[in-house]
């Protein structure tokens, strides 16, 4: 038998294949790559939120040592703007406002960090020195910094031809039915909140290298991307008009993404274009300050939610009005985040029969906002799970009982929500009970009393959440405005001697795909993971792909691999039938072994692969040689992970400092392939959620200056800000993909923020407050405790 031992297949916490290179300094990130003869680009960016460019004088800078070229928008007149990948329609059916997003600012700058000019020089330092010598004549204009300012009459127009600053005014759900639910309600609860703007801050700053082969006319872009094929599509077709066959995009090791490296950014087009123009490679690497002012930000909603309940606490209706900040330009997927990734999640885990949500998206003179870990779903979950706690307090129902009373029953799946989604499976009662048990919910009051004796206020908070990921059925998203399909591609190449190369259109930037995907192959084909190589991140090697985001890699990319393996097995059975002189119908396959049913006649996968590539004794008239199959998998539905998060905090009365003391996550992520990796994904997501709840907030001043533009000013969670996180899973299988998997990349960031704020509010139960806005900083808490709000 060829069964792998020790077991490395589905369910095994095998150590990661990628770790050795990262631990020994042999990872290869974009900035680690140097091309022969490469020059360096530095981007001069706007210091103003809003200004007219009256002139750019590059004469002095051009004469500086080492300068090869300086480009402004005038030089890029022939190339297109940066496209948006999703079109939302207004309530009246008209399309959203979609202003041009130039690669370099044309006539106006619209946010601090907007790129104005590019200097290419022999060294990065020379490019930077020369950029300082460029004189830009700005006429500074008043800025629309906040969404409230931007919507006021006579507000400065971010785009001159759109004085309303409105991108779209969209809605979902049944308004009349929802209004009727409110008219019949015994209780009505209102909750208003701001979902704080975040800066993703993947540890690797973005970088890009353009390279051009003057012999073949082929362009190569090395870039810090989560989806190289998407960049090839957007940049090639819309910006630079380079056919796919002449454009290769490589995303090598990427140091974290969290959404911020999905989008097509100006710098990618700049280095690709400049490399061809200059006939030499051009490299650009962001410093962290540039990351703060040029990577797409996340969240930034202002919402009002109303919940209607009957006398028994059953939810009758939910009405939501949200304003979502788009920033100055539409980033690649920005319009879908506060609509189809947000408002469709407002049912949560509850059987609320009537929901109506309106979303206004607004342009402001700030950095563009797009998906950040969770993307819309954390905003929806936060709104809903805070609202339920506020409702419990106002109506007097126990917060757990109120949740249980409204959970979608475990036998009600598939469950159609009033906001478009159909959940396939889930068991919210079990994840709740398991989390309550693990967190010691029943004995909390003892811990609170004990903390009080130490001068601390202890609070406990819960969130029962759900998300939609495994993005996404192409026809569905197409009908909702996506300008792409969202299937995934997998190629399984069984080599002559039995090792396997897998080509995947997803991209790993921390998720451990090289291990998890190898486990899928080990489990099904019986090949040891040491003999399986996962190849991703290069459009020249991989047929196609849509990349990694929305917890889609395993659910969609893994399913494509599974489908391709089925084709390998089907072909292998035909070859095996020939070799064993049996009929195909009688050949069985299990983990590496083909067997004639009911006999001891077997052939190994290696016997078959060898025969396929050395077809001496082979049914050559019926079957082609070789053993390689490709599958495209288009998911039938989203996947719906969910679960329960419980946070426990302590507040020091004297200082207002909030400390995390305990965190429990019990998540249903579907079938678990590698429990160690799943646990790591949840822990990382929870850390980002705690960061949003307690520490992180992007701040602009009244002129639109970005105040929190460095890691000294923007509070990233550090080791001593966090507490141990207890992670467990409770599985219900996804019913519509072959692996039964749901996805685990975003659950941590989605479920945790409301649990933490619910805990903070609980800790402050003696202080007559109903809410604390995120981030719940020391200053806010101290002011509540000491009465200086």
């Amino acid at each position, binding site marked *: 038998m060829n069964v792998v031992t020790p077991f490395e297949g589905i369910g095994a916490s095998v*150590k*990661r294949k*990628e*770790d*050795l*290179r*990262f*631990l*020994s*300094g*042999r*990872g*290869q*990130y974009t*900035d*680690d790559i*140097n091309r022969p003869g490469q020059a360096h680009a530095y981007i001069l960016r706007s210091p103003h939120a809003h200004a007219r460019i009256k002139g750019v004088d590059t004469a002095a800078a051009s004469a500086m040592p080492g300068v090869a070229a300086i480009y402004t928008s005038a030089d890029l007149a022939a190339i297109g703007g940066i496209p948006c990948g999703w079109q939302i329609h207004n309530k009246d059916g008209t399309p959203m406002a979609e202003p041009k997003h130039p690669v370099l600012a044309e006539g106006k700058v619209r946010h601090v960090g907007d790129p104005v000019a590019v200097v290419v020089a022999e060294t990065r*330092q020379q490019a930077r020195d020369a950029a300082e010598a460029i004189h830009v004549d700005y006429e500074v204009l008043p800025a629309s910094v906040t969404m409230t300012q931007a919507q006021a009459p006579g507000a400065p127009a971010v785009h001159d031809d759109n004085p309303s600053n409105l991108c779209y005014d969209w809605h979902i759900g049944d308004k009349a039915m929802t209004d009727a639910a409110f008219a019949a309600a015994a209780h009505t609860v209102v909750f208003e909140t701001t979902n704080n703007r975040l800066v993703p*801050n*993947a*540890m*690797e*700053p973005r970088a890009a290298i353009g390279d051009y082969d003057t012999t073949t006319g082929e362009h190569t872009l090395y870039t810090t991307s989560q989806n190289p094929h998407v960049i090839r599509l957007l940049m090639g077709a819309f910006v630079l008009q380079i056919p796919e066959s002449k454009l290769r995009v490589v995303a090598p*090791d*990427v*140091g*974290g993404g*969290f959404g911020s490296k999905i989008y097509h950014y100006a710098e990618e087009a700049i280095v690709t274009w400049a490399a061809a123009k200059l006939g030499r490679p051009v490299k650009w690497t962001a*410093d*962290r*300050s540039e990351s703060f002012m040029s990577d797409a930000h996340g969240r930034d909603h202002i919402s009002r939610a109303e919940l209607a309940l009957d006398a028994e606490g059953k939810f009758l209706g939910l009405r939501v009005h949200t304003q979502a900040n788009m920033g100055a330009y539409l980033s690649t997927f920005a319009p879908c985040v506060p609509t189809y990734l947000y408002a469709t999640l407002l049912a949560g885990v509850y059987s609320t029969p009537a929901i109506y949500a309106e979303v206004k998206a607004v342009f402001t003179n700030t950095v563009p906002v797009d998906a950040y870990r969770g993307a819309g779903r954390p905003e929806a979950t936060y709104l809903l799970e805070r609202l339920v706690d506020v409702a419990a307090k106002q109506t007097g129902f126990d917060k757990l009982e109120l949740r249980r009373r409204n959970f979608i029953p475990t036998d009600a799946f598939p469950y159609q929500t009033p906001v478009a989604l159909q959940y396939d499976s889930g068991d919210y009662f079990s994840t709740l009970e398991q989390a309550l048990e693990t967190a010691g919910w029943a004995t909390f009051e003892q811990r609170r009393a004990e903390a009080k004796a130490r001068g601390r206020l202890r609070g406990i908070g819960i969130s029962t959440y759900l998300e939609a990921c495994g993005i996404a059925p192409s026809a569905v998203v197409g009908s909702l405005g996506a300008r792409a399909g969202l299937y995934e591609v997998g190629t399984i190449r069984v080599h002559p001697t039995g090792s396997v190369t897998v080509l995947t259109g997803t991209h790993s*930037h*921390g*998720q*451990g795909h090289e291990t998890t995907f190898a486990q899928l192959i080990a489990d099904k084909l019986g090949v040891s993971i040491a003999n399986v190589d996962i190849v991703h991140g290069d459009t020249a090697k991989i047929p196609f792909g849509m990349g990694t985001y929305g917890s889609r890699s395993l659910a969609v990319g893994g399913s494509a691999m599974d489908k391709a393996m089925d084709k390998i097995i089907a072909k292998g059975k035909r070859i095996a039938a020939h070799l064993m002189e049996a009929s195909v119908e009688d050949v069985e396959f299990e983990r590496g072994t083909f067997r004639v049913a009911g006999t001891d006649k077997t052939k190994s996968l290696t016997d078959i692969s060898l025969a396929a590539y050395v077809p001496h004794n082979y049914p050559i008239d019926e079957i082609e040689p070789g053993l390689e199959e490709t599958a495209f998998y288009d998911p039938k539905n989203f996947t719906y992970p969910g679960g329960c998060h419980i946070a426990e905090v302590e507040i020091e009365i004297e200082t207002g400092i909030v400390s995390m003391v305990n965190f429990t996550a019990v998540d249903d992520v579907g079938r678990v392939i590698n429990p*160690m*990796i799943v*646990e*790591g*994904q949840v*822990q*990382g*997501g*929870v*850390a*980002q959620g705690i960061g949003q709840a307690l520490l992180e907030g992007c701040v602009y001043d009244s002129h639109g200056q970005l105040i929190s533009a*460095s*890691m*000294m000013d923007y509070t*990233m*969670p*550090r*080791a*001593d800000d*966090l507490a*141990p*996180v207890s992670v467990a899973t409770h599985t219900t299988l996804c019913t519509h993909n072959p692996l039964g998997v749901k996805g685990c990349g975003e659950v*941590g960031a989605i479920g945790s923020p409301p649990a933490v704020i619910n805990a903070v509010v609980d800790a402050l139960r003696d202080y007559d407050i109903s809410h604390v806005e995120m981030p719940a900083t020391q200053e806010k808490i101290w002011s509540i405790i000491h009465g200086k709000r």
Partner: protein
Amino acid sequence: MPQVSLTVNGKQHTVEVEGRTLLVELLREKLRLTGTHVGCDTSQCGACVVHVDGESVKSCTTLAVMCEGSQVTTIEGLAKPDGTLHPMQEAFREYHALQCGFCTPGMVMSAVDLVAKNPQGLSEKEIREGLEGNLCRCTGYHNIVKAIAAAQEVMHGRRETVAAAAE
């Protein structure tokens, strides 16, 4: 141009640098030792930590010329010449203390110095405080703390292997 002579991972180098050249630029650009990373520009993230004369330093805030005559160890020089991983590297792998890998070299170099300076052993709280100078965006630190707790047992000779040493 000034010259600086220094030993990196046991190998002697004499390199021409500008006065403003940072140690990390010398390592990455002149010596092509790209395991040391730059994650910020304000000395906050610690992705650039290396050892200079046995002390962990942020190489993004150290001028190359300050390292004249110094012994520098980077992540590339931490394992034994035969490839045997340092116990800290081994522990990071064992406890899944890395995801994207970008902060990892600096995190490991900081952790080695932290443990080496505290032979008495560090509590979980002390490890968390000792990591103040290093940022990780992926892991939530939980497994990094476990890995360091395990590695200190091996580094100080209290255990043979890092497996199960964190419990």
